[in-house]
Each structure stands twice: as structure tokens, then as C-alpha cells.
């Protein structure tokens, strides 16, 4: 029995920006679902994707891998990716893997959306 689930709770559009709201852990159980859902959003060619991580208490390296895949594919089509509202542990994970300088990170979704 597969226990894979999709943690993406909603996708909202603000003009050409897609806000993907995630709820729950992004781990070995859910990272595949997150990746599939986020890449499906990217296929609609937004100018920017904001990943709202305020509802994510825990992320592991499989979650990081999904984010890196989203970013690399987004770059190929000139879509910006912004991570918003990370908790301390998720931010720490990005620092450990030295991806905190690769991703654009904002404290809140509001601040991510306020960018030009």
C-alpha cells in the first residue's frame, strides 16, 4: 500500500503570480506529491511562483530536492521562484545545504507578493 500524499492545499493566482500553499510535512511521504503539483503549476507559465511554507512544520532532503527541481525548471522558462514564511528549522536546513543563497526567501507571503 502506497502512503504517498500531496501536501499542496491550494494554488491562488495574483495576476501572473501563483501562490502555492503547502500544509504539513514535506518528507519522503509527501515530496513526490508536492513536486508533481508544483510542476503542474509551473506548466501554466506564471511569471513568478511563491511557495507558502507557513504551514510546513518539517522538511527533509526529499523536500529540498523537490524545491531544487522546481527552481531549475522555472529558470529554464524565466519564472521566478520565491520561498515564503519558512520556520527556523526549514531555514536551517537550507543553510546546512547552502541553498539559502540559491533560493529567494521572504519572511511572509505578503512581502513575497510586494516585490516588483
Amino acid at each position, binding site marked *: 500500500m502506497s502512503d504517498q500524499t500531496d501536501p499542496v492545499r491550494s494554488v491562488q493566482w495574483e495576476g501572473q503570480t501563483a501562490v502555492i500553499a503547502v500544509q504539513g510535512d514535506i518528507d519522503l511521504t509527501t515530496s513526490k506529491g508536492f513536486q508533481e503539483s508544483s510542476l503542474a503549476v509551473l506548466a501554466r507559465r506564471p511569471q513568478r511562483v511563491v511557495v507558502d511554507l507557513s504551514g510546513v512544520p518539517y522538511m*527533509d532532503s526529499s523536500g529540498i530536492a523537490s524545491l531544487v527541481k522546481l527552481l*531549475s525548471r522555472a529558470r529554464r522558462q524565466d519564472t521566478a521562484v520565491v520561498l515564503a514564511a519558512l520556520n527556523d528549522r526549514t531555514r*536551517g536546513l537550507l543553510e546546512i545545504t547552502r541553498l539559502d543563497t540559491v533560493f529567494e526567501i521572504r519572511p511572509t507571503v505578503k512581502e513575497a507578493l510586494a516585490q516588483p
Partner: protein
Amino acid sequence: MIFSPDRPVQMRVYSVPSHLRVVRAAIEKVCELVDLDDAAAGRIVLSVDEALTNVIRHAYGEAEDKPIDVSIALVGEESDAALEIRLRDFGPPVDPSQIRGRDLADVRPGGLGVHIIQECMDVVEYRPAEGGGTLLVLRRALTGGQAGDGT
């Protein structure tokens, strides 16, 4: 002493991804009971999770019916006290010299687990397990640990 080596917390889980959540919750609770701060607890939880992910993916090839034994204990005394987590799998033996992190400058998905474990724990030892499989010993000092976050 709670969680002493002769009274460790022990559990057997299987190579099902959702079982990792149960182990994470147990490690989190032990960290709380031994007064580790949130940053240190987060790194221990992450390391154990990454190690279990490696077992599921590499030792067991993502089969979901294979056992993994987990043991959590406090070892050492006072300033040398450390939390020790032992993970034993029953897969093919691994060559520890072949287990190493990759170049982080190469931004691509995957291959970060070993780096994370080494960054977050003070001791990371892969040993052949008695009767087959691999025993991974992870240890982190309760105070003054060398691993990454300055705790």
C-alpha cells in the same frame, strides 16, 4: 538516568516512509526530555530521518516490508553526555569509505542526506552488524557539540 544504555528506548519500524514520522516524533520527545534546545533537537531529528531514508532507498531499494531497529540512549557522563541513536538494518553490507557527501556547489536535486548527517552529528559510524546488515551509530553531545549550530 533515563534512557541509559541499559534502558534505551527501542523500537522496530519497517521501511515504509510514513514510519519515519513515528521515529521523528519519538526522537523529538526524547530531545525534549533531556532538555536539548530546539535547534539541536531539529538537527538530530533531521539526521535520523535522513539516515532512515538512506536505508529505505539504498539498503532496501524502497521495498516497504523490511525491518529497521532503532535504539535511543544517553551515553557518557556529565560534560561528556551525548544522545546516541543506533539504526540497524538487515540489508547488504555497505563500504563506509563509499559513503560521502557530494559537492554542494553543484545545485541539483538529491544526494544531500549524507552531508546533512555529517553536518549535524558529532559522531557518524557505519559498522557491520552482527548477523548481517549495517549498524549506524549517531551521537551528538548534549552540550558543546561540534555539529553545525553552535550548541
